[in-house]
């Protein structure tokens, strides 16, 4: 029983981690509190659903198209919304509010077109695998696999490639990077593309696993934001650790308390972290007023 809950926690944590890594990538470099990340997530799942159900494509190509939709939407939000604001030197608060505007607009558009009810994608009973006393479905294993494959790749890109170097430079000192002649616009498009790609993968896998409704994105965004802070702002890999801890704690506590409290619990963890360790688990130690 404990092992099963742990396994469920790891699955949840892996999905949170993918969204949180993307959100962290965007937040650490642009400082935008990108609430529209949530709608990128929702949009991707609904496009996946449309390709499977309305256009009758197979699951695999639809999955890829769903992830591509996420990337396209993420890049569009950067190119047509955040970039003009950046050019105008608008404050981050203004950018956040416009991001909220995008979220509200698209979530209602989706709710209007598809309805508010939960939609199911997976065709029937999933194949299950027994590992010791734990039972995992095929999709749950894919969710873990996605994280296990993408996380090292993410770290690899960040640590060794030229793109990764530029991303880290942007997070350290954006002004200096511009002075050195880097193409910040192109770089930001890459960042939003990558971040949205991770959200799309998580979203489409979750849609296959438990289905989708117009509000999945807000929940995913909130959990990712909590993971990011628990992991530590300013640290690109920390968000994954935060997400895994969050997923495991939430699922383990189902053993003791009702599942209805999981969301409230996540935020309790957030408040405790903000009170006692605002720099997060892996962040640089800073004074509270600095963060």
């Amino acid at each position, binding site marked *: 029983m404990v092992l099963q809950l742990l396994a469920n926690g790891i699955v949840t944590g892996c999905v949170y981690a993918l969204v949180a890594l993307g959100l962290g990538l965007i937040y650490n470099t642009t400082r935008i509190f990108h609430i529209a990340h949530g709608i990128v997530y929702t949009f991707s799942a609904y496009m996946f659903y449309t390709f499977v159900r309305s256009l009758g494509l197979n699951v695999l190509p639809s999955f890829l198209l769903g992830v591509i939709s996420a990337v396209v939407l993420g890049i569009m939000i950067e190119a047509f919304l955040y970039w003009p604001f950046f050019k105008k030197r608008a404050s981050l608060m203004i950018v956040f509010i416009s991001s909220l505007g995008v979220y509200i607009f698209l979530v209602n558009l989706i709710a209007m077109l598809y309805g508010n009810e939960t939609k199911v994608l997976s065709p029937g009973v999933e194949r299950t695998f027994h590992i010791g006393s734990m039972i995992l479905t095929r999709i749950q294993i894919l969710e873990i696999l996605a994280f296990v494959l993408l996380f090292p790749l993410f770290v690899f890109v960040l640590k060794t490639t030229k793109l990764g170097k530029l991303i880290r430079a942007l997070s350290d000192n954006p002004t200096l990077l511009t002075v050195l002649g880097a193409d910040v616009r192109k770089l930001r498009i890459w960042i939003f593309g990558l971040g949205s790609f991770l959200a799309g993968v998580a979203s489409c896998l979750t849609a296959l696993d438990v289905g989708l409704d117009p509000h999945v994105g807000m929940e995913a965004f909130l959990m990712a934001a909590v993971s990011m802070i628990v992991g530590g702002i300013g640290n690109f890999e920390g968000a994954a650790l935060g997400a895994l801890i969050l997923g495991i704690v939430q699922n383990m506590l189902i053993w003791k308390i009702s599942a209805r409290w999981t969301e*409230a619990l996540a935020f309790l963890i957030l408040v405790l972290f903000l009170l006692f360790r605002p720099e997060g688990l892996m962040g640089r130690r800073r004074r509270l007023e600095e963060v």
Partner: protein
Amino acid sequence: MNYLLHILIMITIYFILSLSLNLLVGYTGLLSLCHAAFYGIGAYTSTLLIMKLGLSFPLALIAGIGVSMILSLLVAYPSLRLKGDYFVLTSLAFQIIVFSILYNWVSLTRGPYGIPGIPHPRLFGLEFGSLPSFLALSSVLAFLVFFILYRLSSSPFGRVLKAIREDEIAASALGKKIPSFKIWAFVIASGIAAISGSLYAGYVTYIDPTSFTLDESIFIMAILLVGGSGNLKGPIVGTLFMVILPEALRFLGIPDTVAPNVRQMIYGLLLILLMYFRPQGIAGEYKFE
């Protein structure tokens, strides 16, 4: 006629909410996404006191304000030392926790079933059951709130809040204790939001947690962003616009099934356009700089 009275009553209720949130957003520069939580705390506290302990309306109203103010310290203390995004996130967290409690603590709040049969407010032996009399009561309260906030905003306290909004470091260099000013602003705003809650419960005579969701908090915030904040004109214009907009859409013949979505799409789009072209909103003063 009744329809018009209903809209006017809703306008007074949202006046109180937007004017109080204005103290945070417009005067102190804090983007709070948990105003609906305090609205709900006010509604539930006063309703439970009236229905379980038989308290009179004015006492329950005051108790609701008190409970809301005390609980607001729970958010204010940890979050007001933080800036910008962290404060937004903590307020979001509080909103979600309060909603979870209202929804899941079934033995106290009846959770998703809601509380039906709330009596209309009674004051000095008068029952405010009919629409015109209720409108009179809510207008008086809204005016009272307006008056208090008007005095507050032109007082030294209000000017310090504006100074914090414009330049926190300069204000603290002048010897103002920034955290305690922010905490006071937050506590006062939360207390006032509770008044709306009691009024709403007494008006509709039924409450359930779905009236106090994150969407509602975002809606109250949108009132300020569209109308503008930082002065008293902004929230008034915003409330009129945002409460009347859905009614206007009804006359345009948009079917009821999609009307709520269309309404929210319009204000989502408005937020984007206003932030680009006119960040201070229609009639506001604060530009979120």
